[in-house]
C-alpha cells in the first residue's frame, strides 16, 4: 500500500457502502429459475431489460451498420481509425434528435454543444473537473444515486453537501432546504459551485415539477452558480405528470442567451432509456462554449468506441424505430411498475407515487424495529439473506429518514418479479406475526447481540463515511 496515491488508498470510491455489498452477496448466490431457484433475486440493479426484442428485431432488419458497411461498401477502416473527440457527426445528430423526441420536441439541441463520453459516469466526473476545484462543493438533494460519491468526488476532490428532502412533502426540493444546504456549506468553509439534480430522480422515480425547476433556476441565478441536470432516466417516464426538462423551463423564462443559460448543463446516456449500459454511451450538453471545449478535450480519457457510435447512429436515425421504441418502452415500464406497486400494496407496503425510472421507492418504515438506521440495516440484512432479494437501503442513498428502500423492477422477467413479490409478502406476514416491528420492543437488546458485527459496522460506517453529512 505504500507509495500509492491517497486516492488509491482511501475509501471515497464509495465501494464499501452497503449498496455494493448487497451486490456482492447476490454474486455469491444469484437466482436462476432453473439452476438456483432459491437464490437471491437482483432488485438492486436499475437496468431496463424490457425492450430488447425491439432492438434485436431492428438489428435483424438492418444488417449493414452491424457489419461495418455503408451503402454496400466496407467502412471498417474509417471506423477503426476514427478517434475524433468531436464524435461521429451522424451519431451526435441522431442523439440530439432522440433527446428532443423524448422531450416531445418542446426543446431542441445543437450537436455542437454536445460532448460524448464513456457513459454518464464519465460525463458527471468530467463536469466536476470542469466546474470545480478540489475542496469546492456541489449541493445534491437526498436521497441520491450512491455512485455519485465516486463519480463526483473521488478523483476530483469535490465535496457533496446534501439538500435534505423528506417524505413530509414527498421528497420535493424546497427553498428552505436549498438555503439550509448552502448555509451548511458555508459553515464548513466550502465554496459552493453548483447544484446537481437527477431528473427523473434516482432513487425516487419521480420527475421534478415545474415549480421545483423554477425554484432551482432562481436559486442558481441568485447565487451565481451552476446547475447540472442528470436526465439519464428521461426516456423512462411512463405516466403523468410528464417529463419537463430544465431546458424547457429556461426557455419559458426567456433565459436564452442570458448568463444563467450558460450555467445549466445536462447529462444524458443510453444506459437506461435504451437499456444499453454495456455500450458506454454518455453525453454532456452545455450552452457554455468554454465548458464544451474543455469537456471535449477531457473526453479523450473516455471516448466512445467508434464501432458503437456507428451502430447507434444508424439505430437512432431510424425515426420510425425511435418513435415506436419510446412509446412501447414506456408502456411496458408502466405495466411493470404497476405490477410491483399492486403486489406490494397487497403485502401492506406502500411506495412513493412515481411516474418514471426503473424502480420504486418503497416505504418499509412500519417494518422497522425502531426509527433508526441500525434497524434499517437489520431489516435490510433480513431481506437480503432470508427473503433473498437484493434491494437498496435508503441509507446508501443518503436518505435522512430510515426505512425507505429502492426496489428495481425492470431487470427481470415477469415471473421473477411475481416470485419476488410473493417472497416479500410471505416475509411481511411472518415478520408481523413474530412482532418484529416497532410495536414490540421487548427483545430489542438481546436480538442486537445476535447481529453479526459487519451489520453493526455498516450501520455506523455509512455515517462515519460522511462525517459531516448531518
Amino acid at each position, binding site marked *: 500500500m505504500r507509495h500509492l496515491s491517497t486516492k488509491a488508498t482511501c475509501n471515497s470510491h464509495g465501494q464499501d457502502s452497503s449498496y455494493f455489498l448487497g451486490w456482492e452477496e447476490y454474486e455469491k448466490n444469484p437466482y436462476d429459475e432453473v439452476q438456483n431457484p432459491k437464490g437471491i433475486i437482483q432488485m438492486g440493479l436499475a437496468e431496463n431489460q424490457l425492450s430488447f426484442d425491439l432492438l434485436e428485431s431492428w438489428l435483424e432488419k438492418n444488417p449493414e451498420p452491424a457489419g461495418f458497411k455503408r451503402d454496400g461498401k466496407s467502412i471498417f477502416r474509417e471506423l477503426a481509425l476514427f478517434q475524433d473527440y468531436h464524435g461521429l457527426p451522424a451519431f451526435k445528430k441522431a442523439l440530439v434528435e432522440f433527446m428532443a423526441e423524448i422531450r416531445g420536441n418542446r426543446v431542441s439541441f445543437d450537436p455542437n454543444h454536445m460532448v460524448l463520453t464513456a*457513459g454518464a*459516469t464519465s460525463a458527471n466526473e468530467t463536469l466536476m473537473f470542469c466546474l470545480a476545484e478540489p475542496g469546492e462543493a456541489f449541493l445534491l438533494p437526498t436521497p441520491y444515486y450512491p455512485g455519485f460519491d465516486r463519480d463526483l468526488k473521488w478523483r476530483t476532490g469535490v465535496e457533496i453537501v446534501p439538500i435534505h428532502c423528506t417524505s413530509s412533502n414527498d421528497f420535493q426540493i424546497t427553498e428552505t432546504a436549498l438555503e439550509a444546504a448552502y448555509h451548511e456549506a458555508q459553515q464548513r468553509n466550502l465554496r459552493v459551485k453548483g447544484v446537481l439534480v437527477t431528473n427523473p430522480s434516482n432513487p425516487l422515480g419521480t420527475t421534478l415539477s415545474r415549480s421545483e425547476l423554477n425554484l432551482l433556476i432562481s436559486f442558481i441565478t441568485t447565487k451565481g452558480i451552476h446547475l447540472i441536470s442528470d436526465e439519464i432516466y428521461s426516456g423512462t417516464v411512463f405516466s403523468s405528470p410528464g417529463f419537463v426538462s430544465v431546458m424547457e423551463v429556461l426557455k419559458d423564462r426567456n433565459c436564452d442567451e442570458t448568463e444563467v443559460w450558460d450555467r445549466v448543463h445536462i447529462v444524458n446516456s443510453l444506459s437506461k432509456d435504451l437499456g444499453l449500459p454495456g455500450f458506454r454511451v454518455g453525453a454532456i450538453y452545455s450552452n457554455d462554449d468554454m465548458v464544451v471545449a474543455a469537456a471535449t478535450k477531457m473526453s479523450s480519457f473516455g471516448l466512445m468506441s467508434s464501432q458503437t457510435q456507428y*451502430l447507434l447512429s444508424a439505430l437512432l436515425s431510424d425515426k420510425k424505430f425511435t418513435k415506436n421504441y419510446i412509446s412501447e418502452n414506456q408502456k411496458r415500464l408502466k405495466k411493470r411498475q404497476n405490477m410491483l406497486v399492486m403486489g406490494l400494496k397487497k403485502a401492506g407496503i406502500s411506495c412513493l407515487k412515481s411516474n418514471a425510472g426503473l424502480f420504486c421507492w418503497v416505504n418499509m418504515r412500519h417494518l422497522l424495529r425502531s426509527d433508526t438506521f441500525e434497524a434499517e440495516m437489520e431489516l435490510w440484512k433480513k431481506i437480503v439473506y432470508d427473503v433473498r432479494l437484493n434491494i437498496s437501503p435508503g441509507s446508501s442513498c443518503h436518505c435522512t429518514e430510515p426505512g425507505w428502500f429502492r426496489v428495481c423492477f425492470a431487470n427481470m422477467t415477469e415471473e421473477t418479479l411475481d416470485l419476488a413479490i410473493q417472497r416479500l409478502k410471505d416475509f411481511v406476514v411472518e415478520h408481523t406475526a413474530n412482532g418484529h416491528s416497532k410495536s414490540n420492543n421487548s427483545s430489542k437488546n438481546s436480538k442486537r447481540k445476535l447481529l453479526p458485527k459487519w451489520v453493526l459496522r455498516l450501520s455506523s460506517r455509512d455515517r462515519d463515511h460522511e462525517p459531516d453529512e448531518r
Partner: protein
Amino acid sequence: MALSKNQQLLSKIATNDRHGENSPYFDGWKAYDKNPYHPIDNCEGVIQMGLAENQLCFDLIQKWIRRNPKASICTAEGVHEFKNIAIFQDYNGFKEFRQAVANFMGKARGGRVTYDPNRIVMSGGATGANETVMFCLANPGDAFLVPSPCYPAFDRDCGWRTGVQLIPVNCDSSNNFLITKAALEAAYERAQQDHINVKGLIIANPSNPLGTVLDRDTLRSLVSFINEKKIHLVSDEIYAASVFSTPSFVSVSEIIEEMECDRDLIHIVYSLSKDMGLPGFRVGIVYSYNDAVVNCGRKMSSFGLVSSQTQHLLASMLSDDEFVDNFLKENSKRLAKRHSMFTKGLEKVGIACLKSSAGLFVWMDLRRLLKEQTLESEMNLWRVIINEVKLNVSPGSSFHCSEPGWFRVCFANMDDDTVEVALERIRVFVEKQQVKSKRKFQNNLNLKLSCTPRRYDESVMSPHMMSPRSPLVRART
C-alpha cells in the same frame, strides 16, 4: 483579457493550458486539414506524416470479421448474444476479453512472458490508462521522470487533471539517445533539491518518437534505479508488436523475471491502437504487478470502460491463435518493408535517420539543413516543410527534444504510392537546399565587406487559441 463572470466559475483545469493543444505543434495539422493530399483530387495537397497510425493490415482484420459473423452482435449468427452484451457493464470486463488480451500481449513478446488475465484492467485508450496509473500512484504536486524526447501528450495524459508534474531526463544524439544512469541520477537529484517528490519513472518502450527499443542493459539499469530509489516504473509498451527488425523488443516483464525487483513498483500500459491499428475502438489496458493498483485501477476503469460490443468482437478475434500468429508476423513484415522503402529513399538524398527497429515512424536527422542549431531554426525549417514541401512532419521540439534539427516522420498511415510522392518532394526540396547553399557559398566568396547577419524571412505562424474544431481532433500523435 479579464475572464467573464461565467468563466470565473470554471475550474482552473478547464481554463488552463495543460491540455497542450495550444502548442504550435498543431499548426501543422491545421495546414493538413485545410489542404489534405489526395492522389486524384488534390495531388498538390499536404501529405500527413505526423500521424502515427498503422494502416497496413486492415485487410487481415476485415477478412477475419467476414469469416466470423458470430463475433458481431449485429449479425444473424451473433444477435442472440445482443442482450447479454448490451447490459454488461461490469468493470472487470468480459473474462474472455481479458484472456484474449493477455494472450495477445504474450504473443507480442514471442511467448517469452505470460500475462495474468486477472491483472488486465480496462481504460479509455492508452490516454485513459496513463492517467489512471498516475491517479493511482501519485498525488497532485508529485512528479514522474520521463526520458525526452517523448510523446507530446504525456503531459496532458499524466498531468492535466492529476496535478502530477513531468520532469524530463534529456537524451541526445551523442549516444543515440540512450537513457543513461547518470542522466537519471542528475534529474532525480535536482528534483530532490527543489523539494519535488519524485514518485516514479515513465518510459515508452519501444520509444515514441525514436522508434528504438530499449536494450537489456538499459532496462536492467532502469529497474535497478527505481528499486534503489523505491519509486515506480511505468512502461508504456503501446508499440510492442510494431517491431520489424532487430534488435527485438524486450519487455520490462521479461527483465523482472531475470533480476531482483520489487514487483509492486512495476506497471505496464498497453493498447490496441498502434499494434492493431484500431484507435477508434478505444482499447486501453493497465497491467500492474501491484495488487492494490489493479484493485484501484479497476474501480477507476468505470470512467473509461471498453464498449462491451468491442470487447466481444476482440475477445473472439484475439483468441483465434491462428489469426493472431499470422497477424503479428504479417504486420512486422509489412512494417519492415515500408520502413526500408522510406529510409532507403531518404538515404538516396543524403538524409539519415536514427537506426530503429520499431514504431510507425522514423526519427529523421535534418540538423545539417538548419541555419543555426537553435529551436528557432528548427521551427523555421518546419514551417518550410509544411508550407513548401507540403508534408506534415513533427518537429523534435514538440517532443521536448533538447537538440534542434530532428523530426519524426510517420510512414505507416498511407499507401506505397503516397510514400513515393513524399520521397520525391523531399528529394526536390533537398536538392533545392543544396543549390541554395552552393550559391550562398559563392556569394560569400564574392563579398567584400558585409558582415551584417542575414535576417531570416519570418513568415511565422504564431501559436494561437485553437478553436474547438481544431485539427487536434484526430490522433494526437
